[in-house]
């Protein structure tokens, strides 16, 4: 290693900076940890309490202990049960499509070409639009009679298009998935692109020298090195997709009937429209535990190398 400029290495450390040096690991973690604790400890303790007492606006100011009643109340409701199942397949489908699309896009955009920078700027734009608004605009698209979807469909399809994209099964699901994919594919794209950029050329050169074909280079060089990034992206995206709320709120309001209720929307309604806070909070805790298990499983792969190292 070439030697560095002299002055930097010759400074005598002061008492403060050497204390800092010894405790640097804790100093670095403290601000973040402190903020999280301060702003979540009271809400979480409160939320634990609320889940086990009767806390319902229509039932008065007393909050007697009711044990597991709030939790059971959720399970009695078929809308809750259906929403869990629906949330699961929504999130998996959306994330899978976003991952696939994002990866293809990142690979396609890796090589520079004219206009790439302009395109990249546009690609990032959907992320900056609030999901509530994205849902609202897709709603505008598909609703009749002022929306565009039916007109577009009639250009492509011979004959009359009488589908109501915002109501008819399975179109309403397709529209919801499309809205989410439209908004979040750029997320995957950017993260994966950054990850691809971080893979050093030397590895590809080595593979090339070894006579590896491009597909093999992808499987043995790109994919393994990209895996941690993929896992991060998928974990975050999956957790966020599972909490799908804003798009439902503005596109379908859970309808028609209860066909597009996600768990978050159901809990929002229970807690915020009906103020059945006990039941809503109990449901939220159950949902949190389910999400924790799933993400723990995903993240274990990421954490494993840390232990091995």
């Amino acid at each position, binding site marked *: *290693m070439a030697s560095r400029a002299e002055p*930097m*290495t010759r400074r005598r450390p002061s008492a403060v900076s050497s204390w*800092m*040096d010894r405790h*640097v*690991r804790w100093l*670095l*973690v403290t601000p*973040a*940890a402190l*903020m*999280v604790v301060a*702003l*979540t400890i*009271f*809400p979480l303790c*409160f939320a634990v309490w*609320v889940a086990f007492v009767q806390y319902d606006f229509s039932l008065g100011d007393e909050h007697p202990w009711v044990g597991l009643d709030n939790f059971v109340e959720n399970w009695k409701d078929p809308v809750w049960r259906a929403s869990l199942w629906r949330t699961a397949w929504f999130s998996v489908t959306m994330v899978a499509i976003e991952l696939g*699309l994002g990866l293809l*896009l990142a*690979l396609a955009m*890796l090589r*520079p070409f004219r206009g*790439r*920078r302009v*395109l990249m*700027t*546009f690609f990032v*734009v959907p*992320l*900056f*639009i*609030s999901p509530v*608004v*994205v849902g609202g*605009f897709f709603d505008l*698209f598909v609703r009749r009679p*002022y929306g565009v979807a039916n007109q577009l469909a009639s250009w492509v399809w011979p004959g009359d298009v009488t589908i109501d994209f915002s109501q008819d099964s399975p179109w309403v699901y397709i529209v919801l998935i499309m809205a989410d994919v*439209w908004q979040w594919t750029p997320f995957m794209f950017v*993260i994966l692109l*950054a990850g*691809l*950029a*971080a893979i*050093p*050329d030397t590895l590809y*050169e080595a593979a090339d020298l070894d006579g590896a074909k491009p597909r093999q280079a992808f499987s043995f060089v790109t994919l393994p090195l990209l895996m*941690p990034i993929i896992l*991060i992206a998928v*974990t*975050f995206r999956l957790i966020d997709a599972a909490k799908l*709320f804003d798009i439902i709120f503005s596109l379908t309001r859970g309808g028609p009937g209860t066909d597009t209720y996600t768990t*978050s929307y159901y809990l929002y309604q229970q807690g915020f429209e009906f103020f059945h806070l006990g039941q809503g*909070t109990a449901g*939220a805790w159950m949902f949190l535990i389910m999400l*924790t298990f799933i993400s723990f499983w995903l*993240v274990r792969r990421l*954490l494993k190398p*840390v232990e091995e190292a």
Partner: protein
Amino acid sequence: MTDITAERPRAEQRGKSAAVRGGRFRVGGLLRFVFIAIYTAFLLLPLYWMAVTSIKSQEDQLSDPPVWFPGDPTSINYAEALNRYNGWKGLENSLVVAFVTTILAVAFGTAAAYSMARFRTGGKHLAFWFLSQRMMPPIAIIIPVFLLYSRYSEEWFGFGLIDTRIGLILLYTVFALPFTVWMMYAYFRQMPPELEEAALVDGCSRVQALRKVAWPLAAPGIISAAAFAFILSWTEFLFAQVLARNEAVTAPVALAGMITFFQGNLYGQASALTMVTLIPAVILGALFQRHLVRGLTLGAVQG
């Protein structure tokens, strides 16, 4: 191990390795462009519709079949959105809150991530604890946060955090931290410690090593983390709606107000305001992608 000072020759070899890296698609060059074209069309269609809706007159908004090229575009939607429906205030609040949140979340998050990656502070439990913050559905904590900000903040500190920008900033920082921490955690893990070891051997303190070696190399990751922290605060809706009343109204709340307006919809005005919120988005997107592209052409993190 490659030499950090040998950047320039590396760049020359870039073209070749890029071909190798992207070689898989050399055959499908046309396919690649078709794919990009289709995706771009899919991307631009709603944006075009938003843009066109923002300049349509009332007549055109309600016409059936829908109007693709408005005959007499008008700017009234913009004027209305900004002046009448809290547009200016929403934009200003959103900008301030998003910027400060980003700075805080990136600073604290990177520091924590570095500590966890290099020193295994807190082991795997601390890391996972940060992540788990993200999993809580808002409904469980929205009422206690509301109470905290209104009643208890008043009692304990003498001022309420309800309807204040600082209140939103603190909350959003906590929301963004899991992401910034984990993004940087993955980055630092990917970065070999040898470089900093070398700096330490040379006599730098740990703090100096962090500042002069680790931080610059993690730049692409920091940029990404910052971008997403910004996006999170820029688009957050539910908490802003509950915690803001008049003063701290952010752009998404103003927009949602237009979309659920009086049991109807003000799509002209909503699209106008959305278009305006896209201006900082496009600027930041342009800056962001430039950094990203620079990372691609100057050579990746070595080692």
